[in-house]
């Protein structure tokens, strides 16, 4: 917290307006009935009172639910392919929660790994992620069990913390530090401000009571992988909808489809879900035709396969899959119920 700054709440709109000059500023909004990141309207900062997290995770700004990759039109000589107009505007997302910010780190690795995904990475490079420390986590949150927490800064450029009349402002990344350092609206934070922030963060952390031991989840999952009866039982109430995956901050499966009418249209990429029975049906059949295999895949991808590849658990504990699930399927209960390594038959 060494060089932390602060801004009075009544000055936040001014600060965002200032940033609006250089960036397209997005902030939490519930204008259409659902909490989401939307173009900031230039004045409303009421989200400081009601906002806990968005329904759509922050990934949807970088890996949108659907995007046009190129359009296909026809002229006298045949077909014409056009890339969407290039967008160079920088984008500043205000109010990203620590869980969602962390998800970006987990996704970056995937999209830069075997090949560089220009669509995702271009948006990421143009973005500034301004986090907002969690002060009122939900009962479904379990971020502290997966290397995160209500005050974690991973994936953020700047972090704000609500400390009453003021917001404490900390530059996290180089980009973020520069933005904070040169800003005249921000005042230097006092020791009292910093202490208050510390207390608030501790209190928030205490509010997170949903805890799981993820220390050896990789090994435990591996051990139980072939145990069909275990997975049958775990998946019994799953209805195979896409809520938990499409709205998961770290799920990144996508599908590519042509939306064509009369020989014209566009090629689009959209999110896909391994929970769907039609998943990967385009080359042949879904290798996971049974529901229990799909549920197993979802869990293992996050807690076994991804960690094997990238050393991190691909879950940020945001709790969306628990609180939005139609049947209250709870990933933490399932992880808790994994037999210890030595108990397994295999």
């Amino acid at each position, binding site marked *: 917290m060494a060089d932390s700054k602060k801004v009075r709440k009544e000055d936040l709109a001014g600060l965002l307006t200032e940033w609006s000059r250089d960036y397209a500023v997005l902030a939490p909004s519930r204008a*259409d009935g659902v909490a989401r990141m939307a173009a900031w309207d230039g004045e409303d900062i009421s989200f400081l009172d009601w906002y806990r997290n968005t329904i*759509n995770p922050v990934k949807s700004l970088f890996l949108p639910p659907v995007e046009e990759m190129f359009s296909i039109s026809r002229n006298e000589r045949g077909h014409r392919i056009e890339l969407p107009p290039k967008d160079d505007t920088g984008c500043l997302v205000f109010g990203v929660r620590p869980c969602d910010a962390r998800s970006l780190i987990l996704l970056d690795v995937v999209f830069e790994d075997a090949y560089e995904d220009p669509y995702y990475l271009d948006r990421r490079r143009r973005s500034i992620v301004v986090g907002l420390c969690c002060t009122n986590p939900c*009962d479904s949150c379990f971020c502290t069990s997966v290397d995160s927490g209500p005050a974690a800064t991973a994936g953020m450029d700047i972090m704000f913390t609500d400390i009453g009349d003021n917001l404490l402002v900390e530059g996290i990344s180089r980009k973020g530090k520069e933005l904070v350092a040169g800003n005249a609206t921000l005042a230097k934070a006092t020791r009292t401000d910093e202490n208050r922030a510390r207390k608030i963060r501790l209190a928030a952390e205490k509010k997170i009571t949903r805890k799981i031991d993820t220390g050896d989840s990789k090994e435990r999952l591996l051990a139980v992988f072939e145990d069909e009866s275990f997975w049958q039982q775990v998946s019994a109430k799953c209805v195979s909808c896409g*809520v938990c995956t499409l*709205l998961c901050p770290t799920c990144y499966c996508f599908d590519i489809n042509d*939306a064509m009418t009369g020989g014209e249209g566009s090629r689009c990429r959209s999110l896909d879900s391994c929970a769907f029975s039609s998943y990967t049906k385009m080359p042949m059949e879904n290798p996971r035709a049974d529901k229990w295999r799909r549920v197993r895949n979802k869990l293992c991808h996050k807690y076994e396969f991804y960690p094997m590849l990238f050393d991190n658990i691909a879950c940020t504990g945001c709790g969306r899959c628990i609180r939005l699930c139609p*049947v*209250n399927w709870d990933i933490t209960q399932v992880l808790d119920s994994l037999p210890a390594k030595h108990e397994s038959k295999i």
Partner: protein
Amino acid sequence: MSYSAAKNSQMQKKLRQEAKALLEQGKVDCIIGYEPGSLKHATTPLITKDKAATERLVINPFIVNNLSNFLPYTKGRIGIVAKGCDSRSIVSLIQDNKVKREDLFILGVPCSGLIDVSKVEALVGKYRDEIDDISRQGDIITVKVGAAKKEFSLSQVMFDNCLACELPTPAEYDVLLGEPTSPIGAAAESAGKLDELKAMTAAQRWAFWQNEFRRCTRCYACRNVCPACYCKRCFVDETEPQWLAPMPQEPDNLMFQIIRNLHVSGRCTDCGECERTCPVNIPLRALTRDMYDIVDELFEFKSGMDTKTQPLLTAYEVDEAEDLVK
């Protein structure tokens, strides 16, 4: 019969005994019921073959899921907990030959209506997990947040479809767990968005729906929780021909929901599950309720009322709907 917590726990006790006995005597292979959820004021489906697990079965004003949805995918003989609305879905599935009556043991729950926690959230301005207690005594719902206590009427906090419920006590059951209940009878207050929509012009209505479906994520929760949506292969998953784009884009989102409603016409019982589970709060019940009323108005048909009735779309009368044809 008015609701009381004591009567409710009586039912719950009876349910646990019955369910355990059914498994012990080998009358059913599994039990489908509800157990406490992992979130506050929530329950979750319990699908089990384990007699000890029947101790976890609950009945309370939060047993929201329509469990009949699991029937076509569950093998063997099934003991299923069913509220009035669920029993209608079960009957509809029997009419459609998706399940056999003799494979079911229906544990009927005379239902007094379910509490819509999102309505409570809006009323007290708190999120689900910030609300300490929601309890019902008679026709009063008491909500506690910290030291504050507020009382609400049924029409304020019950699900819209519960307010219009026509069959709170299952007509089809093997054992009824309590005394029959009567409908809340607040149909006038249950229309939700539908009344607003009816007052609009056609263009406004269409614009309304276009706007609502802009945020559809195509998660298909509405379809997958719907007991009437049991097709092994849904038209949205067809690739040859591809009826609509399998991605969340606006005209197709709306088209998907129109077709879904048309496909479940006469089987939809207005159980409200599609609207409840929509993660982006699209008021889907304004569509399902409209369809429910249309079917009733045109053909005097109410889905899932008795196992003998022929499904709506497989039956016909020689003289009907002729005014449609020009």
